[in-house]
């Protein structure tokens, strides 16, 4: 029991949560920035640029605005980071890492994934700046818009996997991964295609990739919820968003295409899948502009929502 707890703690703090997820997340950010630079005919920053940025921020002074709620302002970044550390530890890396059941199931993970968004909302409103407030309301609108589709997508996969394994619903991510390791990835199952597309459409909104980078739109609301942050807390917020990209992409990989070799090669394949997703994100970011918040919300309520429902109906019809 104690050993289990220790291992779990290690998983959260060092691998695959904590330090490892941070490193991977920052490296992915570096890859993204470099890729976008190349698409725009630029040289771009070195791949390790996000590490430099983070280290630099850790040494800057923290300014707390007079209008801000000091306690909330400073703790919120930590909450987001902690949630993401735990979430990262819950993502199985096939053939390499199996999360401990102590960490909880798919439902817990679903809630953890929305914590950074909530943290960002709190950060925005705690900062007491009008831009932060607008960032807050936009973040809220977009979260409400994508929460539905993502839930539908998760439920569809869980139902499908559950039926295949003879359970009512499979909520354990490891089981879902193991099933796919043996019976082939869900990505190639046409019945799950709508669910997969729904998940894909959720990624840019959650990670703040164009055209859905509305809450942090620099030209409109400065950087929205981040506007009043500086120094280490800003670094933590940036770090959180880096880990979040690992979690969200990792969850997608686990749900739809976990297959890979055993051992360290499995880890490499996992990282490569993340890189491919990030490159696709970079292409999207470089190829489009930003939507208006009402357009984005309408978009989610229309297409991903419909796709999500369709996906669930398809899966249910097969049961």
């Amino acid at each position, binding site marked *: 029991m104690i050993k289990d707890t220790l291992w779990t703690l290690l998983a959260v703090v060092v691998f695959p949560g904590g330090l490892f997820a941070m490193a991977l997340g920052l490296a992915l950010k570096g890859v993204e920035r470099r890729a976008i630079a*190349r698409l725009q005919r630029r*040289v771009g920053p070195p791949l390790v640029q996000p590490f430099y940025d983070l280290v630099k921020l850790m040494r800057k002074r923290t300014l707390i605005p007079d209008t801000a709620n000091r306690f909330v302002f400073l703790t919120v970044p930590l909450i987001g980071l902690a949630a993401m550390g735990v979430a990262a530890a819950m993502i199985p890396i096939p053939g390499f890492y199996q999360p401990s059941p102590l960490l909880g199931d798919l439902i817990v993970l679903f809630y953890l994934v929305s914590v950074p968004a909530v943290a960002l909302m709190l950060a925005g409103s705690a900062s007491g700046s009008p831009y932060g407030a607008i960032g807050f309301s936009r973040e809220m609108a977009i979260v409400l818009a994508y929460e539905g589709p993502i839930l539908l997508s998760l439920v569809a996969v869980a139902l499908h996997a559950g039926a295949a394994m003879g359970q009512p619903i499979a909520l354990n991510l490891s089981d879902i991964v193991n099933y796919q390791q043996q019976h082939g990835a869900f990505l190639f199952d046409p019945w799950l295609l709508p669910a997969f597309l729904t998940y894909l459409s959720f990624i840019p909104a959650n990670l703040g990739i164009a055209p859905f980078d509305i809450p942090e739109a620099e030209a409109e609301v400065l950087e929205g919820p981040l506007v009043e942050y500086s120094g280490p807390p800003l670094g933590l917020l940036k770090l959180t968003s880096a880990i979040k990209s690992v979690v969200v992409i990792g969850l997608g990989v686990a749900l739809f295409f976990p297959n890979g070799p055993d051992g360290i090669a499995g880890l490499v394949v996992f990282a490569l899948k993340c890189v491919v997703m990030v490159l696709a994100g970079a292409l999207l970011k470089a190829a489009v502009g930003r939507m208006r918040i009402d357009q984005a919300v309408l978009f989610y309520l229309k297409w991903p929502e419909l796709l999500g429902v369709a996906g669930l109906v398809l899966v249910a019809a097969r049961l």
Partner: protein
Amino acid sequence: MTFLKILWDNLRKGPSTEAFPFGEATTPAGYRGKVTFDAATCVGCNMCEHVCAAGAIRFAEADDGLHFVIWHNTCVSCGLCAYYCPTKAIKLSNDWHLSHLQQDKYTQLDHGVVAYKRCTSCGDKLLPTGSVLTQLAYKGPNPRAERLMDLCPECRRKASTRGEAI
């Protein structure tokens, strides 16, 4: 779709970034940069000071000659001084490496002394006329005029009344 093609072309063509600051930057020959001053050709007409909108040019009289000072930190490189300079003693180079640290702010200047000549007759000081101006005025060398130019205005007047005028 048009834009995806542009992105693809971008990727294919590779970065268009200039080498500077890690390599040399190209500068057109006609770039209006740092002002240069040639005291030898200056005739002290003050036209450059007169047309300078930013007050970057100052002439001051001293014992040894006419002092010319240009402060680059207020020069707008409009080129009016060079355009209106009758002898082209003032020119704009294409040097743009003007960035400097704050402690050097007040040393960013060029200085030239248009040295006084002594009148060959009475020894009074006078401003040299400069050969470029004589060339302009007489379209060629003129020994009598040049002798007159070595005299101060007072001696020149006397010389003229003696019938040495041109």
